[in-house]
């Protein structure tokens, strides 16, 4: 028994050390990043974005300068509004995004390419054409992902005029850690199209990470192709920073 324990511990120690000493060989080197960024620079097109996978591989931001770098954590359900071609920049040893991207209906636009420990592959998202309604210039963190949403005061109404494509998409959540404040009442977004009530989106206090970015997808009634959309934000507690994103799609 003691002999077995001896050899087991010796093997455990040696194996651990081997794992440690070979760690760098499983990770990208600076040259790998630079090479990958160069390829992206050469092949970038309108509507391109890079999705890093796993999401902690944000070292990529140091190198990728030709397109937005996204760090969505749920590849199946992420919206990617306005993105036509998604470049999956991944560390395959830590997870391959292929399965999730296929699950959402994306198809490969090219063969995967390797740069050391990195893999690069472009994916067509086959997303319908969209028209953004809310401001897309600023980013805010909701549910630990940077979102192109517009900060609104709770108790206010945002009215925007834009193309009334087939579907209206509304996303909303509380910015930062205030989303988790215990005992806070839900926030309701009442949505109007052309002055008529269309739907309501409820944003309850986030209890579990990954559920704070609330979604509403609703068909736009037929009518004027250019329409006024209103978003009335209400809650008994108005002290939380609130963010809303809205767009219509064909």
């Amino acid at each position: 028994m003691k002999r077995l324990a001896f050899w087991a511990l010796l093997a455990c120690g040696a194996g651990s050390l081997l794992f440690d000493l070979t760690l760098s060989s499983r990770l990208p080197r600076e040259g790998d990043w630079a090479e990958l960024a160069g390829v992206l620079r050469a092949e970038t097109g309108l509507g391109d974005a890079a999705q890093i996978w796993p999401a902690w591989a944000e070292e990529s931001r140091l190198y990728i300068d030709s397109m937005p770098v996204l760090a969505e954590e749920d590849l199946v359900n992420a919206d990617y509004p306005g993105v036509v071609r998604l470049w999956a920049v991944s560390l395959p040893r830590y997870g391959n995004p292929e399965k999730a991207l296929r699950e959402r209906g994306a198809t490969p636009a090219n063969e995967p390419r390797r740069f050391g420990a990195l893999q690069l592959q472009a994916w067509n998202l086959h997303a319908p054409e969209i028209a953004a309604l809310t401001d897309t210039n600023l980013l805010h963190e909701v549910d630990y992902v940077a979102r192109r949403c517009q900060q609104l005061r709770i108790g206010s109404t945002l009215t925007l005029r834009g193309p009334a494509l087939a579907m209206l998409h509304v996303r909303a959540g509380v910015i930062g850690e205030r989303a988790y404040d215990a005992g806070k009442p839900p926030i309701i977004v009442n949505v109007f199209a052309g002055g008529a009530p269309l739907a309501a989106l409820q944003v309850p206090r986030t209890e579990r990470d990954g559920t704070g970015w609330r979604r509403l997808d609703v068909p736009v009634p037929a009518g004027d192709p250019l329409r006024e959309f209103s978003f009335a934000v209400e809650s008994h507690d108005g002290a939380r920073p609130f963010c809303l994103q809205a767009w219509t799609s064909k």
Partner: protein
Amino acid sequence: MKGLARSLGLATAAAMALTQASVGFTRDEGYYFTAAQSYEAWLRLLLSSPLQAIAQTEKYWSYNFEHPGLTKLLFALSHLIFTTWTHALPDALAWRLPAFAFAGLLSYWLCLLGASRSREAAILAPLLFWCAEGTFFHGHLACFDIPICALWAGVGVAWIQAIESKTRGPKLWFGFIYGVSLAVKHNAWFLPPVLLVHALFLPQRRKALLTLPYILLSPLVLFAAWPLLWHDPVRHLQAWVAFHLHHVHYAWWYFGQVLRAPPFPIWYPLVVDALVLPLPLVVLLAAAGIALLIGFFRKRLSPQRLLELALAGAALLPFLLTTTPIFGGIKHWLGFVALLCPEAAALLVSIAPSKRLLVAVSAAVLLPGVWQIAHVHPYGTSAYGELAGDIPGAAQLGMQRQYWSNNVTAVLPWLNEHCPPASRVFFHEVNFESYRTYVAMGLLRGDIRYAQSPEQSDYAALQWHREFRDYEPETWNAYGTQRPATGLYLDGVPQVVVYARPGKPGAP
């Protein structure tokens, strides 16, 4: 054997002193440095006008009332002697010097506990404890975690000696050393019940129970070492207790979920230990814990081994209750790791077929920890072991990336090189006290200003925390760029990300 223990203690303190320069100032240290400065002013007043100093304890000692005075008094005394009077040491090193002494004491006491098994176990016990970046890092800080861990072992050694002795000296020493632990940190509140239970399990129960009252000496030590109690002691004691009974919960990322409030996962401390420490050490400590538990249930434990089990358990127990604040990685229950080390060392010795093979298996157990220190130090709060998959594996699992902001030292040289005069830097989690110390120590240029938000800054050094993710988009919005200028990436995992306003030197 005491000579060996002293040598290991001195070697430990020396190792801390030699490797401390690159260790950043943790948030808590910033507060303790400020406290030490206030207490040093009081010490100088005490030397010049003793009566005035005694009358004005509240003025100087009210800062950081939530922790007893002894360690901070030692930080202050060390600074007074080695910096203010003799100019022999820089500020931070002088403040940290007593912490190295406590690290040395921990090695000393672990060696003595190991020595009751064998000379080899005496050497291995402290080595097992320190050969991991998660423990080694904490040995450098002017904080209380290693001091209370050392006294956890020290009280144990003193207790064993006291109950075995027929003379009064060891019993008085036990009362004194418990008082010292009480004057270091509130963890010591848990020791009397542990010792009482231990006494009840001993064959020489009566002798042990008659030793326990020496603990009543401890308030004298607490009172003497904490001048805040010299006026209105009841109020200050109440404030001390109340602070810890109602301690705030800080967010902590754990398997992809941010833990914000109780109930916390019951096995949280054991899981974090298993992920942070090198795998062979985890295996050995687990075996030690199991061996002690089996010995307990079979009633085969010596008084010392029974005490080690009790002390290890008591260090861990509060964090298994699911309501105790869990922030700070493994630092709050280091006593659990430490008190298992003598048994772990003995197990290691017992399974080695020969002395030569003992060296081999010891190397196998210790080298992954040595590699971890060489690879990660001074960024100790970021360290993870092989079970987690090292640092990238922990990021993949969704574990706390770092804490306490000390990793910012990695980007200070870059800021010094690139920031134009009077630049404003948003240092994020680095508190003003730590910033001030970086400037005082010459690690940060004095003209670089402390900005309160990304909007008010020219540069931002963001510490990657799950719960502070909102600062990065805020910085992007303020600067109009999403491209960092530089950063600290450990094995590719972001720890500190530096942004520069476009047009500023160093901006991409």
